[in-house]
């Protein structure tokens, strides 16, 4: 089961268990979410291909005390209706879960219109927004359950890129998976496995991040206390988490390297793995960046 399929299955399960859950779709993943529509079509609404309305309709449910879940492809969920998320949810103090499919260039063969490496940075401009980035289907299940009724606009970013095994997540969002003394590496969601492979042979602490907004500042400050070098390996635009890392470590001197998606439009067509290799986000690319940084 993929993260996308797991997210839909968990949403359907919550929908059946909790009458306060509403699901708003925009013509995407209908096959997976159809059981919700069959169970109670009054609160499982496919609005059609209209993402601004999808977020507005979800806010209407939230105004009435529901926990809305909105689902579509990342650029059409995080960017096109950004003002609806900002005002209808953020400003109005409402909660809702926004579950995307197609992280960064997962739709790598579809071209730049379907890419969204800027999703987390865009949503991060909205106060109160929480962002969770699972790395496996099982983590997806847990994070959907943990956040759907948290009272905040929350973005859950599923991806076709996955880690081989789920991690038992620590509360707070940063989970130490390996400890060293010369370097601290924060690996976000689906990039954990390749980050661990990339730092093989280095004396590095690796912290696994699934909740990236807000970033777990206390754990980062404690785990990174012994070394000035900090690396963030992030599956979205490079530097997206830099401000939060800087704030968490403002009490000390830090050298920070951000390894993520370069800020340039992508004009090639190919699967996500091919883009990763071309953009330096495969094991080899990550290892080279980190080794140059610590050399």
């Amino acid at each position: 089961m993929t993260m996308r399929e797991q997210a839909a299955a968990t949403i359907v399960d919550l929908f059946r268990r909790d009458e306060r859950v509403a699901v708003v779709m925009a013509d995407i993943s209908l096959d997976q979410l159809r059981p919700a529509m069959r169970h109670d079509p009054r609160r499982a609404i496919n609005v059609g291909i209209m993402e601004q309305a999808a977020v507005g309709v979800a806010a209407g449910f939230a105004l009435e005390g529901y926990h809305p879940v909105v689902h579509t492809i990342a650029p059409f969920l995080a960017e096109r209706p950004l003002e609806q998320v900002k005002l209808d949810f953020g400003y109005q103090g409402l909660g809702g879960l926004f579950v995307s499919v197609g992280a960064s260039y997962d739709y790598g063969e579809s071209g730049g219109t379907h890419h969204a490496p800027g999703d987390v940075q865009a949503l991060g401009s909205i106060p109160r927004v929480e962002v969770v980035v699972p790395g496996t289907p099982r983590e997806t299940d847990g994070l959907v359950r943990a956040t759907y009724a948290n009272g905040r606009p929350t973005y859950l970013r599923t991806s076709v890129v996955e880690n081989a095994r789920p991690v038992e997540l620590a509360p707070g969002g940063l989970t130490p998976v390996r400890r060293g003394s010369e370097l601290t590496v924060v690996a976000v969601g689906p990039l954990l496995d390749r980050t661990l492979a990339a730092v093989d042979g280095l004396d590095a602490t690796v912290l696994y991040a699934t909740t990236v907004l807000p970033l777990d500042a206390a754990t980062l400050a404690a785990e990174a206390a012994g070394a000035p070098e900090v690396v963030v390996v992030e599956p979205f635009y490079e530097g997206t988490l830099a401000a939060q890392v800087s704030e968490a470590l403002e009490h000390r001197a830090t050298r920070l390297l951000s390894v993520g998606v370069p800020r340039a439009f992508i004009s090639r067509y190919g699967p996500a793995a091919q883009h990763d290799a071309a953009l330096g986000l495969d094991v080899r690319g990550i290892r080279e960046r980190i080794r140059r940084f610590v050399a």
Partner: protein
Amino acid sequence: MAIDTGAIAELRELMTRMTGDEKHTNAATSTLDVLHVLYEDVLRVDPERPAWEERDRFVLSKGHGPMAYYAVLARRGFFPVDELDRFLEWDGSLGGHPDRHRVPGVEASTGSLGHGLPMAVGVSYALRAKGLDEQRVFVLTGDAELNEGSNWEAILHAGARRLDNLTLIVIDNRSSTVAMGDIAAKLASFGWEATTVDGRDHDELRAALSHRAEAPTAVVAAIS
């Protein structure tokens, strides 16, 4: 033409207490008669219990020029009329666009155009899901606000899904710089039961706003 002149005079007097947003005076006065009729004769609301579950919902999507809205809410008893004197003031609760956290009776915080109608569609669905089938949802936009594409997403959707508990009120004071043509005809073509009335005639407004059809209802209130 039927007008409750006493009430309107009283509301206009209340509106004079709110100063500082004179550029939106036309926007404010254009909604005055509709809001009065709505709150006096149509909406099922209780000023003592603004969050009463069985109330009708009203969303002022056109958040601009909310002076008439505030005057109507104050006169209806949602908050003391003296609060009107603190319009746009730092320590007051009445801003240039209404805030649902600050003003009793305000269902949604609006101001950016094109947000209220999609939210009202969601509220309409939510009331259905709760089994509140008699309750209605009203949303007010301006004619120029209908320039915003998000409205037409919601208009297409609500018409297609026959959301019969939803009523859209369009204040048509010809403020759009893009010719809107026959707004009621446009809405009818999207599956709405749409009518145009004199936006100052209280009898016409009352009859149109009280009517519930088997499709979403639109009342275009023409302001001359």
